[in-house]
């Protein structure tokens, strides 16, 4: 069956019509290399400049502080390795959280193998980092703090301004992975006082394989990709003109009526959460009830396993995701869910439904309607459930 009900906007989004339209000329009409001086190349360069301006505007940064990359993971790797290696003379200690995206966590693990020390801050049951914990973790040799803006699994939004303020006070470089927050939150790098911020186009109805890193002027950072003089000599590689143009357009569209977007999604989200929690017993919301991305629903269904749930939903044309080990290709369930104190069992039974610009009320109703029999069917097969039913009776 074809996916007709897409509930995985946090994984990726379709490229919007308007975005693709702006991209198309740059594949074969205005395909010139933006670094060249002739006409067809200059058109590419102008388009890249416009995209940079558009993105700068959404973040309230200067255009010269926006650098295009090959995606959110590259941005995270660049920010963290770049700062770590460039500031080794000042110290070798990095602070991050336990619930970061793998692009941050695996980079930190790599740096540990390379002689850096990393503190992974715990989070509370809602997935929130505590400002006191951060203060206590800071040492004389701390060179970088990297805390994600909003979590991709449970949607929890961190108190970034407070966290960045603590870093600033101590003169420590502050990075935030805003891949999920971008396009779903109002972000002002000046107001927040952050030094580096990662974003990715394909989460906001732009193309895959394009991202950006905001680098505050004066931030000491090495390059990740050395070579030609592109991106003011800081990120080599022939510019992905269509991709960058698409990213710029998507960013502009995302922030054109961001308040409306947030309000609409929040309404749908809460309807979906309420619908599931009230209709299906032995369920629990993961993440924070209000400090939460407008499109994120994450619920644990006891006694069943997430991959089986996803497969069953797929048969009904519903695309979703889970923190179960079986979908991550690893042995353990989601590190995010377990960091919030969830048992492995409940983490295995988690379902993430993420909403976006094409989600309708009808789709919400459809999911709630379909979920109930699916959950029942799986629970009736589950040896864990029968014990509970026994007790319930």
């Amino acid at each position, binding site marked *: 069956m074809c996916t007709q009900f897409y509930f995985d906007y946090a994984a990726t989004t379709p490229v919007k019509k308007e975005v693709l339209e702006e991209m198309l000329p740059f594949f074969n009409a205005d395909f010139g290399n933006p670094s060249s001086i002739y006409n067809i190349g200059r058109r590419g360069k102008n388009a890249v400049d416009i995209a940079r301006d558009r993105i700068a505007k959404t973040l309230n940064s200067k255009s010269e502080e926006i650098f295009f990359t090959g995606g959110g993971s590259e941005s995270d790797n660049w920010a963290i390795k770049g700062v770590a290696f460039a500031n080794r003379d000042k110290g070798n200690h990095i602070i991050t959280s336990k619930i970061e995206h793998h692009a941050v966590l695996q980079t930190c693990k790599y740096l540990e193998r390379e002689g850096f020390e990393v503190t992974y801050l715990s989070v509370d049951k809602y997935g929130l980092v505590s400002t006191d914990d951060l203060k206590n973790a800071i040492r004389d040799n701390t060179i970088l703090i990297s805390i994600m803006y909003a979590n991709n699994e449970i949607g929890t939004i961190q108190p970034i301004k407070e966290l960045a303020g603590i870093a600033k006070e101590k003169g420590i470089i502050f990075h935030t992975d805003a891949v999920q927050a971008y396009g779903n939150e109002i972000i002002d790098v000046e107001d927040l006082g952050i030094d580096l911020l990662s974003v990715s186009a394909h989460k906001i109805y732009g193309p895959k394989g394009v991202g950006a890193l905001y680098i505050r002027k004066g931030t000491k950072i090495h390059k990740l990709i050395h070579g030609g003089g592109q991106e003011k000599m800081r990120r080599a590689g022939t510019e992905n003109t269509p991709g960058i143009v698409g990213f710029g357009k998507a960013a502009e569209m995302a922030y054109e009526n961001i308040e409306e977007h947030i309000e609409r999604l929040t309404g749908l989200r809460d309807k979906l959460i309420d619908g599931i929690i009230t209709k299906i017993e032995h369920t629990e919301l993961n993440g924070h009830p209000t400090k939460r991305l407008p499109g994120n629903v994450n619920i644990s269904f006891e006694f069943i396993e997430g991959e089986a749930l996803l497969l069953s939903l797929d048969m009904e044309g519903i695309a979703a995701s889970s923190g179960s080990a079986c979908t991550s290709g690893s042995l353990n369930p989601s590190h995010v869910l377990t960091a919030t104190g969830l048992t*492995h069992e409940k983490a295995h039974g988690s379902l993430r439904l993420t909403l976006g610009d094409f989600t309708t009320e009808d789709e919400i109703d459809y999911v709630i309607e379909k979920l109930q029999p699916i959950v029942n069917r799986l629970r009736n097969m589950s040896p864990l459930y029968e014990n509970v039913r026994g007790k319930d009776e």
Partner: protein
Amino acid sequence: MYNEKVMDHFMNPRNVGEIEDAEAIGEVGNPRCGDIMRMYLKIDNNDVITDVKFKTYGCGSAIATSSMATEMIKGKTVKEALKLTNMAVVEALDGLPPAKVHCSVLAERAVKAAIYNYAKARNLMYEELEGFDPNDGHDHHHDHEEE
């Protein structure tokens, strides 16, 4: 991801349920790991498995392999059932994605665990069960990062 046969066994699993007066019951797995399988066998006086039922908490391939395994041992003797390997189950399902093959071990172990309990209660010995420990975790497939 899964082929049609696997999806069929997942969506329409055969022999789901319990057998109240089962001669053999075995349970393997661990909720921490995200899978538990319980197997019920009806065994007649000729050592023939006349009925099988299962309950599984687990992913799609855990459920599908449970279902297939029950079909494969129904009507077989206990000794024959003990010869069931996870690879035979995988083959009967026309294959599983490589990362999912480890889930099929659960079904093989559930059959063995049930017969183990049956044998213990009756003081029987099966050489196929030598070294089998129903409380061992099943072989997890470790994806470790190369660096």
